[in-house]
């Protein structure tokens, strides 16, 4: 049965390989080629980190973050609001008493095994560091707030899977508290993007603009490291908001899991 499955898969894949090759080579939908640069991409790459023309730049050498949080910032703001609404709906529908239980739990006793206990501790710390690095360096390297936040949400998932669903509330990550942190992050976001408006600038303004009196957020850290103005702030805020959102949703979905044997 097992061997037959693999043979079947390999045979179909062998038949599919030339089709896939033709698809990516000649382009069945619309293959654009890797070497050609589209006019829009050329414009953004020329303008986004051009120190000589600071009226059009974003002070960030990372194209994706420049577009997401500066040139098309309002789009991302609406996306954040969509996620907020989705989480609010999930909380309203899934709310049970199970998520409010706070009990003391023993890490060693609730782990599935000693090996899982030790390895998951290492993985949890690594994930925390990597996700934070992705968010904080989002204006310099690929990554950013949403990516870092979804990587951060892997940590509670792993903790619930290896230990018990009661561990997160015991560590202080209660759903109400996480919702408050998320709301605080979103209020900070609103503040960051409306401050220029009160100082004679535009809504969502990052760097100086021709007809705006707002001088723009600081583009560099003292010492010359690019800050991207609002980009680093917005990435960190989005990191916290998305991480908390996914954690809340997951905490609700697993409420009542592993209640037996986990408590002390």
């Amino acid at each position: 049965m097992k061997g037959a499955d693999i043979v079947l898969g390999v045979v179909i894949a062998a038949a599919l390989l030339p089709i896939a090759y033709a698809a990516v080579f000649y382009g069945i939908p619309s293959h654009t080629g890797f070497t050609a640069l589209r006019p829009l991409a050329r414009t953004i790459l020329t303008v986004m980190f051009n120190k000589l023309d600071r009226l059009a730049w974003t002070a960030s050498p990372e194209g994706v973050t420049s577009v997401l949080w500066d040139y098309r910032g309002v789009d991302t703001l609406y996306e954040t609001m969509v996620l907020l609404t989705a989480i609010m709906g999930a909380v309203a529908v899934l709310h049970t008493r199970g998520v409010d239980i706070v009990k003391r739990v023993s890490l060693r006793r609730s782990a599935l095994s000693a090996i899982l206990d030790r390895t998951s501790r290492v993985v949890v710390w690594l994930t925390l560091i990597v996700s934070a690095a992705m968010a904080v360096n989002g204006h310099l390297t690929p990554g950013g707030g949403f990516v870092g936040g979804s990587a951060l949400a892997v940590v509670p998932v792993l903790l619930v899977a290896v230990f018990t669903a009661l561990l997160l509330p015991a560590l202080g990550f209660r759903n109400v508290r996480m919702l408050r942190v998320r709301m605080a992050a979103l209020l900070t976001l609103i503040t960051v993007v409306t401050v220029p408006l009160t100082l004679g600038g535009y809504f969502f303004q990052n760097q100086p603009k021709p007809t705006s009196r707002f001088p723009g957020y600081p583009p560099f850290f003292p010492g010359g490291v690019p800050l991207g103005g609002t980009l680093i702030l917005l990435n960190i805020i989005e990191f916290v908001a998305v991480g908390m959102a996914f954690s809340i949703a997951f905490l609700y979905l697993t409420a009542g899991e592993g209640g037996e044997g986990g408590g002390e």
Partner: protein
Amino acid sequence: MLVEHLALMAFLLAASFVVVTLIVRERDLIKAVIYSAAQSVFYSIVLYILMVPDVALAYIAVTVGLYTALMVFAIRRTERFERS
């Protein structure tokens, strides 16, 4: 260089099809979820070759981490083995 990238991409897409076949034929749902994580790894390498590292990073976090865990918890509330 372009040809190698395209050939690697075609290989990865074909390999992911092998894994998809395994997912569909598998009776043990936990194993099927693990295969689906493997398929996501192939797809994320394809995304990396297509020069979208931002999407690839988010794709790995969501499909290998969150989606897999969510499916495992969902399977825990039902039966692990699919009846024929």
